[in-house]
């Protein structure tokens, strides 16, 4: 559906994205993840034909963004980063205008506008000026205009930025619903959003794709589950290190009354807290803390983007 090959964009001396390649299948929801300035927005601007790449190619549904921009633009709905809208228009007028320029036939325009108004829950503000709406409503108007022509591909640049937690949840559930039938690319730097919505994640840093895969795959790239244990016994660290289920046992600190605190990683990255407990019982150790912590996407993200 979306195919990107060797895409590079330079602004004067600085390189925004450098030789990026990826492929997105029809119906996938893909999260574009990366710190600010990583190249997410630049990638999206090229896909939407707002700017051209310095090198490389990008195509949507077989249409090249450089050679056939009109064909590409017809297939996409786009929500730019800061959700720019005409503040002097009311919601219905604006959506009707969007439908018109997006090529919705005049006899279907009214129906299309009504549909996105109900899909994006804008019923209460149809005749309000966009400039008078709250940020959350504006964001929904932005989404509504991106959906008005029922596009096959949705490109959403930070659709949740600046919203409160409830609004974020609404937008994410909307994206989830849309993802059932559309191909969606959305960018964010909030990881929980990606975990909640995306089939696949592309992590971009400094203009490069540093990792891609399902959220689960990416998490498994990290160190897995670490068990923190505070125990008292003889040669705890030595015995733990030689236990078959342990990959690595590291002493973190000495606790009070002869206890030591250790971080233990399982041999196959699994949670080994039960095995640890059994071992402690067997060896007659005293245990005052036993806690398993699974690495999150945040850890992966931090690891990949901090170099």
């Amino acid at each position, binding site marked *: 559906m979306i195919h990107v090959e060797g895409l590079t964009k330079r*602004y004067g001396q600085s390189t925004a994205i450098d030789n990026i390649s990826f492929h997105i299948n029809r119906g996938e929801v893909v999260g574009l993840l990366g710190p600010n300035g990583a190249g997410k927005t630049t990638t999206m*601007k090229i896909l*939407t*034909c*707002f*700017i*051209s790449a310095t090198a490389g190619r990008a195509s949507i549904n077989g249409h090249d963004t450089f050679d056939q921009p*009109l064909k590409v*633009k*017809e297939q*996409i709905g*786009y929500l*730019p*980063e*800061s959700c*720019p*809208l*005409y*503040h*002097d*228009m009311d919601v219905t*007028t604006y959506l009707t*205008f*969007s439908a*018109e*320029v*997006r*090529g919705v036939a005049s006899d279907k325009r009214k129906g299309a506008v009504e549909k996105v108004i109900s899909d994006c829950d804008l019923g209460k503000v149809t005749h309000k000026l966009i400039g008078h709406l709250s940020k959350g409503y504006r964001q929904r108007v932005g989404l509504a*205009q991106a959906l008005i022509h029922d596009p096959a591909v949705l490109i959403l640049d930070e659709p949740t930025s600046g919203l409160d937690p409830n609004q974020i949840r609404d937008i994410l559930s909307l994206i989830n619903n849309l993802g059932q039938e559309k191909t969606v690319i959305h960018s964010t730097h909030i990881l929980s959003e990606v975990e909640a919505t995306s089939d696949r994640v592309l992590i971009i840093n400094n203009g490069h794709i540093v990792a891609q895969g399902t959220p689960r795959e990416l998490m498994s790239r990290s160190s897995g589950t670490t068990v923190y244990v505070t125990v008292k016994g003889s040669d705890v660290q030595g015995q733990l290190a030689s236990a078959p289920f342990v990959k690595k046992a590291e002493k973190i600190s000495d606790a009070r009354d002869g206890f030591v605190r250790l971080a233990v990683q399982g041999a196959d990255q699994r949670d080994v807290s039960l095995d640890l407990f059994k071992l402690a019982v067997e060896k007659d150790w005293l245990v005052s803390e036993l806690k398993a912590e699974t690495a999150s996407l945040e850890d992966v993200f931090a690891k990949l983007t901090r170099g």
Partner: protein
Amino acid sequence: MKNAIAIFKKELRSYFSSPIGFVFIIFYLLVSNAFFFFVQDFFRQGQVTMRGYFAAMPWVFLFFVPAITMRLWAEEKKMGTVELLLTMPMKEWQIVAGKFLAAFAFLAITLAFSMTIPVSLMYLGKPDLGVIIGSYVGALFLGSAYLAIGLYISSLTENQVVAFIISLAAIFVLLLVGIAPVWLNALGSIVAVCEYVSLLSHFNNVTRGVIDSRDVVYYASVIALFLYLNVKNIEARKWR
């Protein structure tokens, strides 16, 4: 063309969506009428002609037309809406054409309100309506040339005030080169070039009620040139 019409409707609506459009028209009518009736002392002239009204038009438009065009691109750029506009399935020229036509329509509406003057003249005597109609057509040509220049300059900046001032300055220069030759006669052929380039010299025929095809070609070329530059400048965003 469908897309250009959609843009046209959006822009024209936007002129009247706030009181600014109406305030603009009223202010224009006040200034131009005051100029005609009081500064040029129409009542003492004893002639039912609008020649003085149209003679002042290049200078009145100098301030009014840049105000019509200044926001057309600059505001889109400032608000970021340009990104949505240019990612909709339209060609750049369709957007430029729509914006230009909307500005033209607004100017034409403003001029239409000044028709109270010829109506008054018809009560006072027998004005030569042919000359007046010819002058109105000429004024639309002149105004359109100003609009094309102003629209292009608006696409160069995201600051409306900057767009206004630079448009005013550019048009001012194009007017002045038509006056300069009087004391530049020594330079010979340059005078002819300056006179040809000037927006002003081509308007002199118009105030006499003559629509010369050479003047029409001149104004059409200025309009075409600046609309073309505008389209190219919008397309050039892709490579910055």
